[in-house]
C-alpha cells in the first residue's frame, strides 16, 4: 500500500512538474478519473492499483507489451468486462465525477463511451443499416433524422466520399480499412463523449492506418479518446499523452513528447527502443 501511494504521488508530481514544458493546462475536472483500480481474473492480477486522469479532448495512448493490462484497463472503462466470468475489481472509475459502476447503468454508459475493436465486424447488412443500428436499438426510428445522422457520422469518420453513392449496398463489400472507418462511424452515430480504440489499426495497411489516424485527430476536437496500441510509433504520432503499462503496473504517464524523448523510467525507454516486448 505504501509503495503504491508513493508511486501515485510520484506520478502526480511528475505530471505537475511537466505541465509547463508540455504546454498542458492541468484540468481541475478530468473527463475520466481512475482511482486505485485493481483487476483480477481468477487468481491472476492483471491490473495493479492504477490511478490516472484522462482529460477532455485529449488522446491518451496506452502502450505496453502483452499482459501489461492495457486492454483490461480499456475494457473496464465501458464495462465490457462485466461479462467476464471470475473477474474481480476494486477501486473506482468516475466519468464526469460519477462512478460508472455504481451511479450509471451499463447500456447508457456504453452509449457515452463508445469502443472500436481491433477487428472491424460490420453487421451483414447495408452501410446505412450498420450506422443506424445503435440508435434503432435505443428506440430512435425517425427516418429523416437517421439519414442525416448517417451522413454526419460517415463524414466524421472520413468515409462519406467513398460510400455516399452506395449506402444501401452491403457493408461486407467494403475493404478492411473502410470497414474499420464504418465501425467508427457506427460508434459516432451514438454521439459518444469518449471513444476507446483497442488496437484499431492492427489489421490495416499503412494507408488505411493513416486515414484512421487522421479521423482520430479530427475527433479529438469534440471527444476524449483512449487509444490502446502495440504500435509505439502510432502512439507517438497521435497521442497527446502516453501511458506505459508493464505487468499490470502503470510505469509512467506523461506528455507524448516527454515519453518518447526523455522518459523518466528506464523500462519505458527500453520498451520504446525495442529492447523487450
Amino acid at each position, binding site marked *: 500500500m505504501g509503495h503504491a501511494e508513493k508511486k501515485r504521488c510520484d506520478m502526480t508530481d511528475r505530471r505537475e512538474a511537466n505541465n509547463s514544458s508540455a504546454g498542458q493546462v492541468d484540468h481541475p475536472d478530468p473527463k475520466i478519473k481512475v482511482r486505485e483500480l485493481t483487476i483480477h481474473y481468477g487468481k491472476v492480477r492483471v491490473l495493479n492499483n492504477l490511478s490516472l486522469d484522462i482529460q477532455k479532448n485529449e488522446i491518451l495512448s496506452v502502450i505496453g507489451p502483452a499482459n501489461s493490462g492495457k486492454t483490461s484497463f480499456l475494457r473496464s472503462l465501458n464495462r*465490457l468486462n462485466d461479462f467476464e466470468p471470475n473477474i474481480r475489481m476494486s477501486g473506482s472509475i468516475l466519468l464526469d465525477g460519477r462512478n460508472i459502476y455504481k451511479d450509471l447503468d451499463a*447500456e*447508457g454508459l456504453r452509449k457515452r463511451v463508445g469502443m472500436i*475493436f481491433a477487428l472491424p*465486424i460490420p453487421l451483414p447488412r447495408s452501410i446505412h443499416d450498420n450506422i443506424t443500428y445503435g440508435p434503432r436499438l*435505443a428506440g430512435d426510428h425517425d427516418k429523416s433524422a437517421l439519414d442525416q445522422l448517417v451522413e454526419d457520422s460517415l463524414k466524421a469518420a472520413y468515409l462519406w466520399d467513398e460510400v455516399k453513392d452506395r449506402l444501401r449496398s452491403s457493408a461486407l463489400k467494403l475493404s478492411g480499412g473502410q470497414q474499420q472507418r464504418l465501425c467508427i462511424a457506427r*460508434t459516432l452515430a451514438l454521439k459518444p463523449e469518449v471513444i476507446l480504440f483497442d488496437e484499431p489499426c492492427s489489421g490495416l495497411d499503412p494507408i488505411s492506418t493513416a486515414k484512421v489516424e487522421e479521423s482520430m485527430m479530427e475527433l479529438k476536437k469534440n471527444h476524449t479518446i483512449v487509444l490502446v496500441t502495440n504500435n509505439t510509433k502510432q502512439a507517438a504520432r497521435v497521442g497527446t499523452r502516453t501511458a506505459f503499462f508493464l505487468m499490470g503496473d502503470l510505469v509512467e504517464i506523461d506528455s507524448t513528447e516527454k515519453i518518447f524523448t526523455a522518459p523518466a523510467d528506464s523500462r519505458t525507454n527500453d520498451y520504446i527502443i525495442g529492447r523487450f516486448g
Partner: protein
Amino acid sequence: MAKLRKFKEAIIEKLIFLSGIASIVFVALIFIFLLREGISVLRSTSLGAFLGGKFWYPISDPPKLGILPLILGSLLVTLGAIAMAVPLGIAAAFYIAEVAPSRLRNILKSFVEILSAIPSVVLGFLGITILVPFLKRFLDLPTGLTAFAGSIMLAFMAMPTIISISEDAINAVPREYKEGAIALGATHWQTLHRVIIHGALPGIIAAAMLGIGRVFGETMAVMMVTGNAAVIPNSLFEPVRTLTATIAAEMGEAAKGSPHYNALFAIGIVLFVISFLINLTADLFLNRSRRR
C-alpha cells in the same frame, strides 16, 4: 530391413483404409439386406395399400398389412415430443451458454450428460410406474398408456441432444459479434435475440433435427408407455403404436418368409429412409453453421 518396414506400413495403411470404409460397407449391406427381405411384401400387397392401408392385422387370413396407423403413431409421438423438447431444450441451452454463472453452468452441463446416459428402458420403467398412472388420474383418461405419455418420455430423451448441440452452436458465435453489439449499447437480451440467435440459428435447427431423429428411432420406452394399439389415433390422448415398437414386439413371433415377416422388414426400410432424411437435413444445417 527397409523392405520389412515398407511392408509393415503397407499393411497398416490397408487396415486403416478398411476401418475407414467399414461404415460405408455396413450401411450398404444393411440396406441391401433390408431391401431383400422387405421387398417381397409387394407380393402380398401393393405399395399404396402397404403405406396407405388403414388396418394392420398381420396374422388374420388373408393378412391385412396397412402401416398407416403405425406411421401416424410414430409421427404423433414424435411431434408431441418435439413440441415439448425443442423450446425447452433451446431455452436451456441459452441459459447454460449465456446466462448461468460459471459454477452453475458446469453443474447443469454434467446433469444434461447424465440425463443422456439413462438407459431408455429405465426411463420407460419410470414412465410406466409413475407417469402413466398420473396421466390417467390427472387427465381422467380410460388409460394412461397414450401417445402423450410416449411424447413426454421421448422429450426427456431428446433434450440432452438438443441442449448440447444448441449450446455448441451458441458458443461458436464469434465473441466479437456479441461485444460489438454490447459496445453499441445493446442490452444483454437485445444481444441474445438479435445477434446470437441469428448467428447460431443453423446449428440450433440442426440440433432440433438430430433430436427428432433420436426420438423417431427410439423403441423401448415408447413401447412401454404408449399402449401399442395399432389403430389410427384421433388425438394425443389415445393409445398408439409406433413403427419401431411394431418391429420389436412382433419380430419374435413372425414366421420366417411369411408376408408378416416381410412386412416387418419393409417397415424397417421405411424407418431407415425417414431417419436418413432427418439426419441429412441436420447435416446440411450443421455444415452451413460451420462454414460461417
